[in-house]
């Protein structure tokens, strides 16, 4: 999964899609994941980074990451 090229992301977690005109907000961890995606990290690398930094177990994060990916795609922020 990749973040679309033209998506603008501000430091405060504000996301703007100039193609659709939609804007979004995300929380700090969402912001971090979007950045990792922008750097072309794959799912396993992202998972490892988050597990190292946050107090969360693997299965919880996998579930949440799956859900978050779906949201990003539905919002046309990311594509496969």
């Amino acid at each position: 999964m990749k973040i679309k090229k033209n998506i603008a992301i501000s430091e405060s977690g504000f996301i703007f899609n100039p193609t659709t005109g939609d804007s979004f907000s995300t929380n700090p961890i969402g912001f971090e994941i979007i950045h990792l995606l922008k750097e072309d990290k794959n799912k396993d690398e992202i998972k490892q980074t988050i597990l190292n930094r946050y107090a969360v177990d693997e299965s919880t994060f996998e579930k949440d990451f799956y859900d978050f990916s779906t949201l990003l795609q539905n919002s046309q922020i990311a594509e496969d």
Partner: protein
Amino acid sequence: MEKLRYERPVVKKLNTGMMNKFGTRTEYNPVTHIDGVSVKGLIEKYGSPLFVISERTIRQTYQDCKRAFTNRYPRVQMAWSYKTNYINAVCNVFHQEGSWAEVVSGFEYNKALQNGVPGNKIIFNGPDKTDNDLKLAIDHNSLIHIDHLDELYRLMEITKEVNKRPRVAIRVNMDTGVYPMWDRFGFNYETGQAWDAINKIILNDQMDLVGLHCHIGTFMLTANAYAIAASKLADLAYHIHAKFNKKISYIDLGGGFASKNTLRGSYLQGNVSSPSFDDYAEAICSALLNAEYSKQELPLLILETGRALIDDAGSLCGTVLANKRLSDGRRATIMDFGVNILFTSFWYEHKLSPAQEFSHYTEDGVVYGPLCMNIDVIRENITLPPMKKGDNVVVHSVGAYNMTQWMQFIAMRPNVVMIDMDSKVHLIRNKETLEYINNIEEMPAYLKEFNLS
């Protein structure tokens, strides 16, 4: 290195031009403590879900209400409406504050007696009083509020049998300009039914007609309806005095004040749209003070306020069981409490707060209970921060009707605790057990055994 607190990643579309009218996000403050007691600690000790009652809030609300009336009218008596919440400890807080008891069944009547309320301070309302109930109430010199003609005739017969003079009032229903009109209970004012009943009672001369009662509805959003009700009852009292030279000693305006909850589908939040105790008191007291009848002698004003006195004092603490994504993209959060113990979810958009810290990112979603049924919706639309399995929530203002209308379904009804004035916690109702439920079942002998091998 210590790891950072985890929160589920979310992304939310921003709708420009659709700002919340109030500009504040009142639902998003964590509520980690109730009256200084930790929510997590309570759940650890007493389980989840858990009803929590604040004694301090009960007393404060009661005193605010009472004061609103006594500041404007010299003779006021509250009577605790048992059906609203008849857990004995709750009733006794009201009785300690000076409330009489208002009951609507033999069960409630006996509960009040066993709590130690003197019989002559119990008001017996409702259409369903058995012969035994009526005899008991006559014996204890309680105030019997007659609901319909059949009851009036039955009471006349019983009175002859037991050879005592009961103290009675009639319940009157009337048009107060509020729709729908509550005309199912009591005798109608406009059609003259009420006056007929009054004539029968006085001419029959076996009972003392001491009061007039009405209960015009519940969650009344206009205080003025009470002014109309008070005037109409005072007018009846005036005519009784004029015709029979008989004094009506009290006017009981029932319950029905709105609490600060938000009604489902309402545009305004309850704390903005509900009249205050002062609004109700102003309407009622000025109507009574201006009534023709009151110029002779002010009647005692009785109030049977229920939900407005107890809603805010009750909270339901619960736990997130799971999160799901619905097919329309909305987030669904499943709680460990359903509509069977939170009946008021059908009426209110209950305010719900997470019981732990979170960042200020939110998602729109639905909150469900665990009942595996479509109707089990706690909040149809709610904006909440992301919560994960095991997180706790506090549902606010659930003190009225839930702990009496709750249903035992699938699991046991939970513990109820009261936090006292010194922030000490008391268990006031035990969680039900399998033994408790099985105790009242009977197994026919021929069904005792089976063989599935």
